């Protein structure tokens, strides 16, 4: 029983990571109908920003985390202005190549700037052990789970009640109608990229003390988050969050009871299996955040 509980804890931690990254991906797709293949690199850069603030500048953990979120939100805004705005009206092929090219460029820039040695950012919480019902885990995992829930609740409130959130929701339903009634669609798209990049940095600040940061860390993460977005019903944020947790838990159970070598394949097997039965995704509905 404690064995199963342990696998669930791993699954929920992984699920939280995938969900925070997938949320940004789903938001971007929902609002501007574009798949950002450089989104995993937002996580990677967020991790480096957090490492720099926490390790190099010696800022306290919460301040370093917030600094990374702010830095990446600014990066997200710049990325929207420099890359996304210029390709938004182009075909999906152009969008695909442009975001993939950004991903490769950012990864190689990270190799040049930060080197290839993985960066470790151990915190006090990542060394302190909590033991519950025979399951040992570091307190950082508890923080990841609690913070993820808080972030999703805040996002839910933001999309339902805040003016910008409502505009994002409206744009996800009908961009042209929004423009007609006076919504500044460019500003909403800009804000969406800022929020999505900030979310990726929040994930990095929470999870990096458990794992490590290296230039290639975003590649597989983008694919997992992408699988969650597809599984949850393209562009539907709640669906992506639920699917991300499903993938995290499925992966963990597969690694624990079947084979660790094929655990990464599980996300995609689950995705294909669900799409065979429900082509519209688990929570199938029209696009809309």
């Amino acid at each position, binding site marked *: 029983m404690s*064995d199963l509980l*342990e*696998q669930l*804890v*791993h699954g929920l*931690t*992984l699920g939280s*990571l995938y969900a925070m990254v997938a949320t940004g991906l789903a938001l971007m797709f929902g609002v501007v109908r574009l798949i950002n293949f450089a989104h995993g690199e937002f996580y990677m850069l967020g991790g480096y920003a957090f490492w720099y603030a926490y390790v190099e500048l010696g800022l306290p953990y919460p301040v370093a985390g917030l600094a990374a979120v702010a830095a990446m939100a600014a990066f997200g805004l710049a990325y929207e202005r420099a890359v996304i705005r210029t390709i938004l009206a182009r075909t999906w092929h152009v969008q695909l190549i442009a975001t993939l090219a950004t991903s490769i460029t950012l*990864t*190689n820039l990270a*190799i040049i700037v930060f*080197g*290839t*040695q*993985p960066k*470790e950012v*151990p915190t006090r919480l*990542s*060394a302190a*052990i909590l033991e519950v019902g025979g399951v*040992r*885990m*570091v307190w950082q995992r508890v923080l990841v789970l609690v913070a993820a829930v808080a972030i999703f609740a805040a996002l839910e409130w933001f999309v339902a009640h805040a003016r910008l959130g409502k505009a994002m929701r409206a744009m996800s339903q009908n961009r042209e109608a929004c423009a007609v009634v006076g919504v500044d669609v460019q500003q909403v798209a800009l804000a969406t990229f800022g929020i999505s990049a900030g979310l990726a940095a929040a994930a990095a600040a929470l*999870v990096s003390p*458990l*794992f*490590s940061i*290296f*230039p*290639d*860390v975003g*590649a*597989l993460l983008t694919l997992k988050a992408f699988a969650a977005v597809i599984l949850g019903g393209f562009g539907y944020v709640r669906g992506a969050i639920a699917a991300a947790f499903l993938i995290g838990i499925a*992966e*963990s159970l597969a*690694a*624990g009871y079947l*084979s*660790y*070598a094929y*655990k*990464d394949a599980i996300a995609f097997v689950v995705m294909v299996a669900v799409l065979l039965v429900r082509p519209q995704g688990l929570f199938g509905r029209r696009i809309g955040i």
Partner: protein
Amino acid sequence: MTRTGYRTIGVAIAVGLAWGPAADAPPAGAQTAPPLRVGFSSAMTGPSAITGEGVKWAAQMLADEYNAKGGIMGRKIELYFGDNAGTPGEAVSAVRKLVDVDRVDVIVGQTHSGACLGALPVVKELQVPMVIEACSHPKIRDQIGKNGNEWAFRVNPDDVMLANQFAKFIVQSSKTVSIFAQNDDFGRGAAAAYDAAFKKVGVKLVSTEFFDRGQADYRPVLTRVKRANPEGVLLVMLASEGSVFMRQFREIGLTQKLYARGSMGTVEFLYQVRDSPNIADGLVEATYWTPALDPAWEKQWLERWKVPVRIHGSLAAIAFRYAVAPAIEQAIKKTGKADRKAIRDALEEVDVPNTPVGRIKFDDTHQAFINMLLVEINGGQLKVLEKIPIQP
């Protein structure tokens, strides 16, 4: 920018390119020996890029050192790099680029077993000598020297040689062992070698698990290890993964004896875990290089790069210094030239008895037999437990 603006920049670049070499060329009539074109191939990108960075740094140190002394037999060294990304497919492109574009005389590499296996047919096809510095897959020896590929030579021992010795050490403290290995040619080759070696000495292999490089979470598999409860765990992994693995190993409360193949028993690993230096105390690594073998090299590295000496760069340096450089010297002395064929022939005759890793002399399978080391992490420090000569 206007179209005219772009054209102006284009013309300026073209003029610059045309002018550049001419500006650097020696005065007419001056005689200079042609440079030696040496290629280093390793993973410069991808999850294994840390190895390639080390190789590149080592190559730069070597080139500066040799060129400061006038090169080898008066011929300066020019460096070229190939990026194999640690994979067989990219290794093929890396070798073709080094040969077709850079026109190198000799290659040192490929660091990763899969890349090596991918590169072997190409070096044979293109007839360029390649000295392997760190690929330990047992199948490599079945393909080189008299076994078919006369252009490849290997300095480092393979995992069958290492496993036969290491298993004898492991059985003294662990009768049951789980293997946890990288899911690539290196990891799978080593896992198969240890499976066979354990059978010979009476160690029961409880489980074998493979992981893809760049994993974030090892806890699920550690839970499996906890369930299987072996006396020891053999890790086939590099330092870059090892630090995260060790933190989670301790997090889950495991206390098994740890054995390693890869680069866990290195200063790279200790640097990664410098916030908790005792985290891997007791781990014993089977290896063939450690900084204690060459303190001068380590000092020079630290001064130049300001980070701990990297094992893969150091192995590339060993291969260059004690196999490639003597072969080039021999080739020039014997034939007056250092072309690919002359270097290949000279490599067969290389015999350097006292290198930091032991004697370097290739047998008819183009395999050298250097010493194996057992290195233990103790109190956050590396300690050489044993130096074991490997017999042909």
